[in-house]
């Protein structure tokens, strides 16, 4: 099944549950639209939270740049010995 169909059917199930919950709740009709807004806003906040947490925990590797420079020097040396002129960066 194409992913868009999977997502749409998930949306339909969630909507059905949501409507069911609303019908069973005691909040007066006039205020239900507020609930919809809260739900969407909290979804958006969850998404932003995921992005923020991921950003904070973003793995970095500054030491790798140094190691790479060493590898490059080693490689250039070897190739120079063998007579390959690879020039400079």
């Amino acid at each position, binding site marked *: 099944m194409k*992913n868009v169909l999977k997502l749409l059917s998930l949306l339909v199930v969630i909507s059905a549950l949501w409507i069911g919950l609303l019908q069973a709740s005691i909040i007066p009709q006039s205020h239900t639209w507020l609930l919809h807004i809260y739900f969407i806003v909290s979804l958006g906040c969850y998404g932003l939270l995921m992005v923020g947490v991921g950003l904070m925990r973003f*793995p970095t590797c*500054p030491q790798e740049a140094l190691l790479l420079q060493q590898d490059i020097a080693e490689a250039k040396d070897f190739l120079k010995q063998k007579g390959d002129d*690879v*020039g400079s*960066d």
Partner: protein
Amino acid sequence: MDAEKNKYSIIVPTYNERLNIALIVYLIFKHLRDVDFEIIVVDDGSPDGTQEIVKQLQKLYGEDRILLRPRAKKLGLGTAYIHGLKHASGNFVVIMDADLSHHPKYLPSFIKKQLETGASIVTGTRYVTGGGVHGWNLMRKLTSRGANVLAQTLLWPGVSDLTGSFRLYKKSVLEDVISSCVSKGYVFQMEMIVRASRKGYHIEEVPITFVDRVFGSSKLGGSEIVEYLKGLIYLMVTT
């Protein structure tokens, strides 16, 4: 699978990588001492003399270890892989970038992971512990993270790094997946892994580090973001 009988074909697409191709060949030979492999350089008619350097490397390492299979002009990554595949004699294929953002020192861990798990695809991920990125500023990291969260939500891909292009494939699997992919650029990399995931192929991940040395010259502008979103929608609808 008998480990001694495996041969790894490493496809490296190049364009103006005169210096980097020599470095990367040296590093591959350094880290894959007891492995049967060949390097297939697919050069798109580089004007900077990349092919001359490759010919010198062939004299040094052997024409059976380094294959030069050039093309007339810049024709795109997907077709470069297909072109390289035609000349691959191994039963496994590795794809990697030529600019040293992918370090050959991770090749043994790809091979080990595949032998341990029997996976069809082993893909490198920059986003887990043990992996990482260097050379990205905050904005770049933010777009990367945002793009990843969006892709995970919309595509449920089953891998943590969708746009990475450091991967090991069983040759037959690569041939199967690549034939059904039509996108270009990094969306192509996403399409490959998502299609493979949908086809039920066993995919494993290994952490890799990514040192972005072209930082500053590879900008992530508005048009790239639009292209990415279009790619996401395309993948959402067709996979």
